[in-house]
């Protein structure tokens, strides 16, 4: 079905692959290789001098409810310096065992979370729950691989790991270098579809798998005893929300989410907050974004222009606004164009 002939020209080959160019890059003389090795050794030496290794110092944690601990991540982008430690990660201690909720943005952060757990309890870690597939929440998984824990995630989590994993690994290798060593996207042994209850010894956790909202693999964890809700990135506070699933789906999810029997929420990013008040800022931002995009679409504004306009009135309310708002506007515009 090729109609190039109608134009009287040959069709360019769209299946040209870059392999040949990459292969050429490997052609390198032995001497250059030895020089590169010396330079690398020097770099390694310099970098280890610059970054003192305190062997897996425990992460700073806060007990936000009885037996429920959180390390609050910095509102920042993942870097080598912060070891990817930008998301909230936590754990809940039951009578028999521990459940970990998210593992952080590097294996090192995961190991430091494990060290923090061991300052509180020697009980076995029974579950490692991933609230969704984003790197800042799951890159620490490998630190728990030898703990005998079952990894738990949304039924869409394995697909997200396979579709996005290789991109995440190479993109963050560029940004974080060897801090990324050892990262493995451990797929869940237990997947959650709808609702699942996990028992860690007289303490039941209710896991809820959501339809596409922040991502297409969002999972929340409710600690029934203390009525504390780990929202994953379904809730952002202070850190601008990031739309990577569906804006409409997210706004729709906020209604049932608000009815959850919780007193306190631990968001994916930002401080713990009273429930459901914790949803107010995020709802306002997402509604503003949707409203702006709809108006721009109705006017026939091109997407590139919309990306720098939609949502800007929210700027003063959020950290990392510059890093994510244009991205959110782009994704929201492309989604809402189909309404």
């Amino acid at each position, binding site marked *: 079905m090729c109609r190039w002939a109608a134009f009287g020209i040959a069709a*360019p080959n769209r299946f040209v692959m870059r392999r040949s160019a990459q292969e050429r890059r490997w052609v390198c003389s032995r001497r250059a290789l030895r*020089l590169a090795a010396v330079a690398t050794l020097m770099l390694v030496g310099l970098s280890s001098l610059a970054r003192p290794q305190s062997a897996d110092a425990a992460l700073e944690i806060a007990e936000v409810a009885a037996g429920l601990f959180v390390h609050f991540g910095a509102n920042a982008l993942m870097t080598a310096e912060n070891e990817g430690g930008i998301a909230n990660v936590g754990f809940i201690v039951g009578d028999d065992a521990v459940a970990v909720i998210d593992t952080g943005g590097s294996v090192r952060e995961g190991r430091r979370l494990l060290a923090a757990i061991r300052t509180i309890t020697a009980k076995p870690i029974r579950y490692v729950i991933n609230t969704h597939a984003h790197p800042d929440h799951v890159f620490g998984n490998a630190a728990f691989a030898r703990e005998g824990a079952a990894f738990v995630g949304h039924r869409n989590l394995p697909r997200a790991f396979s579709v996005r994993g290789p*991109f995440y690994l190479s993109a963050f290798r560029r940004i974080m270098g060897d801090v990324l060593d050892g990262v493995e996207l451990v797929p869940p042994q237990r997947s959650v579809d709808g609702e699942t209850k996990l028992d860690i010894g007289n303490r039941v956790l209710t896991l809820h798998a959501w339809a596409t909202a922040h991502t297409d693999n969002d999972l929340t964890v409710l600690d029934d005893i203390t009525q504390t809700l780990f929202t994953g990135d379904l809730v952002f506070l202070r850190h601008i929300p990031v739309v990577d699933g569906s804006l409409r789906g997210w706004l729709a999810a906020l209604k049932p989410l608000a009815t959850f029997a919780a007193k306190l929420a631990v968001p994916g990013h930002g401080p713990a907050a009273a429930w459901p008040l914790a949803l107010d800022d995020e709802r306002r931002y997402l509604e503003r974004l949707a409203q702006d995009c709809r108006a721009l679409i109705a006017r026939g504004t091109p*997407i590139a222009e919309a*990306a720098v306009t939609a949502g800007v009135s929210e700027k003063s309310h959020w950290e990392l606004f510059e890093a994510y708002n244009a991205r959110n506007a782009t994704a929201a515009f492309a989604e809402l164009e189909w309404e």
Partner: protein
Amino acid sequence: MGFDATDKSELRSMARQGIRILWMLAFATVLGVSSAQPLTAADPEDAWPGLARDIFNGRDLADGTGVIAIEMPYRAEDAAIVPVTLRTALPPGDTRMLKAITLVIDQNPAPVAATFQVGPRVTMISTRVRIDSYTNVHAVAELSDGQLYASAVFVKASGGCSAPTAKNAEEAKANLGQMRFRQFSKPADGPTGGPREAQIMIRHPNNSGLQRDQVTLLYVPAFFVTELHVWQGEELVLAMDSGISISEDPNIRFDYLPNGATHFRVEAVDTDGHVFKREWPVDAAM
């Protein structure tokens, strides 16, 4: 340890050269971060000379300045949806016409994003592409005399959770093949006769086939729109021959000159041989 003199002096000289390389690396890093210009042909890492040779069979590429321009954000905010606008212009008195534009994303796994064949009155094409990493993007215009003109921009892929893949895989499957057509007036022009803009949208996941399903351990088969044609009456306005770098839900906006026809007709074909067809009346009110 038994190093002889030659070994030691060679080691010393290698150490000196190592330091030199470190400095060069440091400078390269600084330059790499601050430079918004496309990589030059002299750079050994530049994939373009080889790509250009393979794609255009060694034909000469003239400098496209003033003939073809690429508008893209310097930073790809969302790696899955990076807007790109191609604009063409010919100097006054130049009687040649634009025939085709090839869009190449140098560092993507399949660099040729699309080739657009254009009707006689198209000067602007906008679409959305996936960007895998920091890359040069080239647009090559072919004129009616067969001469090729190339322009380039550099695009920085964003970090964060931005990935060049579907955000909502279920929905993508459920809505396959839906089409929308929008017509826009250009406020700068009068009510009749001037150029207008239109936009064609098709629901399609445009899977790249580069991903592996972790449950079945099989590669997800490539599944994308390969061809798209837009006619105004019987006249072809635009044809796209496309690959996996075009974003999910292919979306193309273009300008055209009304030719008096009453209908637009659109036909798209994907890798599975699905044919998606629809017609829309030309909006005469605009």
